């Protein structure tokens, strides 16, 4: 399976010019099936950004809502399963943030 999505990397050579290189993403052997996630956690460390993708049962949230509305004591801790942990470079994290911003914070 080939993924034809490309990303343009602008690599600054100097202030006056930049080089644009397309990156062709190809599915790797270990990519496996897509993973669905409704929980994310972002942590920064030295030179990398760690993103944890998790899944929490939506029914659990609904049950919590019912508990809260009825005034009953809610559990202190609920469990979520970590689906995947990605460690990405700071540059890649910035690119990801830019892409997400372009998607969701487009100026009209």
């Amino acid at each position, binding site marked *: 399976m080939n993924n034809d999505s490309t990303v343009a990397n602008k690599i600054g050579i100097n202030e006056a010019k930049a080089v644009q*290189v397309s990156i062709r993403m190809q599915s790797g052997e270990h990519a496996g099936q897509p993973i669905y996630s409704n929980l994310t956690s972002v942590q920064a460390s030295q030179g990398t950004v760690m993103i*944890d993708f998790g899944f929490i049962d939506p029914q659990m949230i609904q049950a919590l809502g019912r508990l809260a509305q009825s005034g009953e004591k809610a559990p202190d801790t609920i469990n979520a399963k970590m689906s995947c942990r*990605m460690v990405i470079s700071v540059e890649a*994290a910035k690119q990801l943030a830019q892409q*997400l911003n372009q998607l969701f914070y487009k100026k009209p």
Partner: protein
Amino acid sequence: MSQSDPLQVKIKLQQSVQSGKPIYANVATVQNNQGMSIVDFGFYDPSALQSAVKESESQIGNKSSGVIDAHLSRRIILSQEAAIQLAQQLNRLFTKNWDTKKPQSDSVMADMLPNEIKDGSPDQGKDLLVNSNSGFRFPWFRKK
């Protein structure tokens, strides 16, 4: 419990054998499709990028048609709400004064909980604390 008293719940993110192993990526792409966001994480050889840059530098006008290959490491499907929250987390990370020597974390459970959840634990994201002081509020708690 009043409406002005948000419910605090810790979320314990449980690792499995497979998910506990981190995967490194140096490129990420995002596609939006039918209310879902598809985030592809990939890895490309940095030396291939340098070669492509050198090649383009040697060309007249610096117009590069170079394409380098990256291998898809992992594809994550996020609900739109989760993707928006991820964007907010990353934005916070890069807009605040980021000291890379001190680990920082920011966590959001997004699908049902649209507001901010901050990680109150230094434990590498295992215990995610719903922090009322940071403004988190369950949807059924409305501000008066």
